[in-house]
């Protein structure tokens, strides 16, 4: 046992992460990777249908490495609340979310350009533990070759300036200028958001 960190009250420790590697598509998006016929369709390719409540948006972006090169082998998952701020999850204690909205999606980046793209809705507000309201946001989780532990960050919306100004997470940054790294640009239902793993524009990543 690791003497430095082992807590005798809790006998087990989380399985240590290992990189998703270059072939993550085989496991998580086999149809995308060319392995047809094992699953009917890849999981998480659609979050909305024609009954989903809320403002439809598209969200597109890329993930860049420290040399400014887009990752063409990255896989991202997003998780968010519905239009009323409820999550489609058994762990949601406040009520039943819109059954026509999954809240979760998965996208393998385009193998040539590195673009990810989601069709979703603008999420409703979700409270912070102290009761303050958070600005609309989408949680995003990023895995790829070279990423040893999946990276957690959030996407906020540039056109929600008032809500963003009151957001407890955005307001907690020691370096205020880093807020901008989490703001998706655009409006009228179309947003773009690039993520930078390193460099002067490095995105804020969270220890959630």
């Amino acid at each position, binding site marked *: 046992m690791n003497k430095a960190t082992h807590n005798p009250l809790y006998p087990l420790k989380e399985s*240590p992460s*290992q990189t*998703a*590697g270059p072939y993550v598509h*085989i*496991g998580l998006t086999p149809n995308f990777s060319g392995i047809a016929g094992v699953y009917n369709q890849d999981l998480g390719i659609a979050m909305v249908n024609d009954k989903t409540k809320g403002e439809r948006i598209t969200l597109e972006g890329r993930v860049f490495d420290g040399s400014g090169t887009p990752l063409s082998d990255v896989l991202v998952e997003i998780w968010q609340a519905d239009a009323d701020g409820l999550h489609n999850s058994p762990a949601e204690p406040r009520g039943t979310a819109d059954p026509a909205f999954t809240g979760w999606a998965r996208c393998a980046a385009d193998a040539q350009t590195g673009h990810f793209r989601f069709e979703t809705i603008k999420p409703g507000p979700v409270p912070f533990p102290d009761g303050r309201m958070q600005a609309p946001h989408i949680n995003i989780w990023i895995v790829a070759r070279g*990423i040893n532990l999946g990276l957690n960050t959030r996407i906020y919306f540039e056109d929600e300036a008032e809500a963003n100004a009151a957001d407890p997470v955005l307001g907690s940054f020691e370096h205020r200028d880093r807020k901008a790294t989490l703001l998706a640009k655009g409006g009228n239902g179309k947003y773009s958001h690039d993520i930078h793993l*390193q460099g002067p524009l490095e995105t804020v990543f969270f220890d959630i």
Partner: protein
Amino acid sequence: MKNSRPQTAHYFPRDRSWHPKAYDPGYKSSVLRSPQRPLVAFPNTLSETTGPAFGHNIIGTLDNDMTLNFAQPGMSAIGERIVVQGRVLDERGQPVPNVLLEFWQANAGGRYRHKKDGYLAPLDPNFGGCGRTISGDDGSYAFRTIRPGPYPWPNGPNDWRPAHIHISVFGQAFAQRLITQMYFEGDPLISRCPIVRTINDPAAIETLVARLDMDASAPMDSLTYRFDVILRGSRSTLFENRLEGN
């Protein structure tokens, strides 16, 4: 689906000395793909303590059998037939039921069915390399496959991956989302692998090594390896919740 995790659940912080560091020059791909700035921490909100759930109805009958799920009728994948079984538990030792596990791996020769894999070992026409299942009420899971082969990869001058199976796990919360790799007891390549060695603590590496379970192995059929997946545990505030815990 039963799940009464309360609003006040908070997940134990990830032990960043137990997980691999983001930047490890021994694994060259990590050099330009590792954030350099400190992570920002904040208390779990419902955006982190909730997560997607997947019904058993998404699972096809052969999804948990990689020896058959890509094979032509009457055929099966080439290689050492194995069953991997274990439980999904949290750090408190409680079962994590009804969560999706996804698996992917190379074939018995160490070759992936992927356009970026140019290793000279042949593809197996009856092996795709992906599988999935959902944990039972007691957190248990199992899948059948063939033991994957080790393979060389471009990193150092002569680096080889030990035989391994990639495992992706959802928990009850997005904060528990995890991908890891399972290795095989006794493989001399484990301690030589730069990806394994991104983990600093030998005790942590040991937890990723599946054990041969002869008693669970099916005679004249397959060997069984046992591998438990541990997800982050959570605490909840007394009085705001049920006294008997959750």
